């Protein structure tokens, strides 16, 4: 037990981070599953983090309500900007959401209530391990159910061929908006959880680099199943710890991973079909 306590006191933040990153990766997986490449999720996470932290600091609200507000606030923003933004597709959508992310970051940087560039300090520690575990499990369960539902199938058909989906009578615009808003909600809750165990948040954490990080997790893990993004998030959270010896060149690996995965594993690391085929071949060799 003592060993575990030692481990926990050293690595609890890391484990928390893995959980939060997994939720973020799932949030972008959701929009990708509907064929939307949105780079706004870091901004949604930021909105969730700031709204929840301010509620805790200024009003001392109960944690459950704070978390809920952290999810609802970015979801509302997504609902408002969704209708015009989602008319765009492909790279245009990526660029628009990137621009939106920058607008959010600069706004946070310039507001008085958010503490400007210094950010918010002294956010009380409220997130516990089981909060993250529970919410991550709920997210996975919800998304797994969603995937097998009418909504999930609609997402998939939109991703495969938008025009065909529309001809089939699927309300494409509404489903896209749903994916975008739900993604924002999950990212916002993840942001709220994150803010309540790091003590401190600043606008720097919600910029373009972070949007890219979230995307990297999902691309690395693979989008063909829910496990992919979680695996990707875990790997990318652990990499910096494992690669400490590289010092200044640590982030080099992140970039290299992104390039290599895109070149050689276009479907990500976790691709059930390829793994099954590989297992079968190995068995065949032995026989």
């Amino acid at each position: 037990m003592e060993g575990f306590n030692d481990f926990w006191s050293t690595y609890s933040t890391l484990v928390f981070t893995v959980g939060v990153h997994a939720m973020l990766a799932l949030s972008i997986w959701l929009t990708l599953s509907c064929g939307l490449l949105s780079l706004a999720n870091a901004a949604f996470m930021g909105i969730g983090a700031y709204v929840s932290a301010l509620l805790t600091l200024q009003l001392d609200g109960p944690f459950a309500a704070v978390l809920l507000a952290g999810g609802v606030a970015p979801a509302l923003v997504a609902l408002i900007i969704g209708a015009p933004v989602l008319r765009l597709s492909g790279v245009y959508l990526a660029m628009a959401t990137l621009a939106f992310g920058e607008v959010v970051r600069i706004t946070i940087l310039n507001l008085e209530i958010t503490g400007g560039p210094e950010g918010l300090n002294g956010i009380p520690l409220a997130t516990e391990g089981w909060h993250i575990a529970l919410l991550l499990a709920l997210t996975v369960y919800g998304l797994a159910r969603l995937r097998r539902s009418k909504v999930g199938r609609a997402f998939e058909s939109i991703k495969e061929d938008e025009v065909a989906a529309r001809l089939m009578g699927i309300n494409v615009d509404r489903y896209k908006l749903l994916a975008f808003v739900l993604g924002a909600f999950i990212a916002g809750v993840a942001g709220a959880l994150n803010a309540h165990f790091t003590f401190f948040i600043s606008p720097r954490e919600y910029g373009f680099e972070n949007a890219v990080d979230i995307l990297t997790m999902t691309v690395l893990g693979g989008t063909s199943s829910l496990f992919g993004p979680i695996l990707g998030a875990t790997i990318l959270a652990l990499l910096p710890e494992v690669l400490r010896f590289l010092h200044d060149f640590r982030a080099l690996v992140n970039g290299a991973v992104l390039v290599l995965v895109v070149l050689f594993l276009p479907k990500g690391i976790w691709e059930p079909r390829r793994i099954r085929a590989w297992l079968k071949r190995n068995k065949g060799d032995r026989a």
Partner: protein
Amino acid sequence: MLEQQLLNALTLGSVYALFALGFTLVFGVLAVINLSHGAVFMVGSYAALALVTRFETPLWLAMIGAMLISGTLGLLIDVLILKPLRARNAPHLIPMIATIGVSIMLTTTAQGLFGAEALRFPDETLPAGEFVIGDVHVRALEIAIVAIAFILMAVLFTILKRSQLGRALRAIAESPKAAWLLGINVEGLFHVTSFVAAALGGIAGVLIGLDFNAITPGMGQPILHKGIAVIILGGMGDIRGALIGGLFLGFAEVLSKAYLSSQMGDAVAFGLLFLILMVRPSGLFGRKLERKA
């Protein structure tokens, strides 16, 4: 001091235009959003600095060297990464994600090699000289920056409009397949485009490094975002639009910084970008986009 601000805006705007030109050229011809263009810009800046400080080359030679180095880098990115993706017919977002990876690698390498703090060109290597016209102080450096940017842009425009190479490139921009059927060496011209675009990005990096007299590993990121704003403003793949958009953004940014607040410059750029995407996704000067089904 409106005149002084207008001069600053012209300097900044012409470099934005030069940067965005390479960016938009790659999108127009290769149909790739090359998000490593900002990092290539940064590499150009460090290359010129290294040439000037370590090998004591004169500045003009260092500029040419920086263009060659960054151009070669752009060529390498195309051959090693974009070409295999083209061969695989990867969805168009995939190359964009790959270039993000390249950008991270280049930025980290630069930070590891040169450190995170800002480096400067030694004073004696910069063109000195300053003129005073009325109340306006004009540095020789600023004139040089604007002149270099406009000369390079004029050369590029002439090539694209008048030469056989330019016609071939415009044909590819319309349809790579049709261009290939007409006997145009499409792959070869993709390489040429990547080289030229990266070289333009690299020299833009040198010019910004000279203008601000500060070179940092992260300097590519903000200009990349500005570049995105510019090519959306001007219409993606639109060469003339990149020029006008770049100048426009330079003026909008400098003037809002001067007359609104120092932080507002960036907000104006992205707010504008966001608005234009909402209202006119094809850009202010762009043609109406065909529906891609």
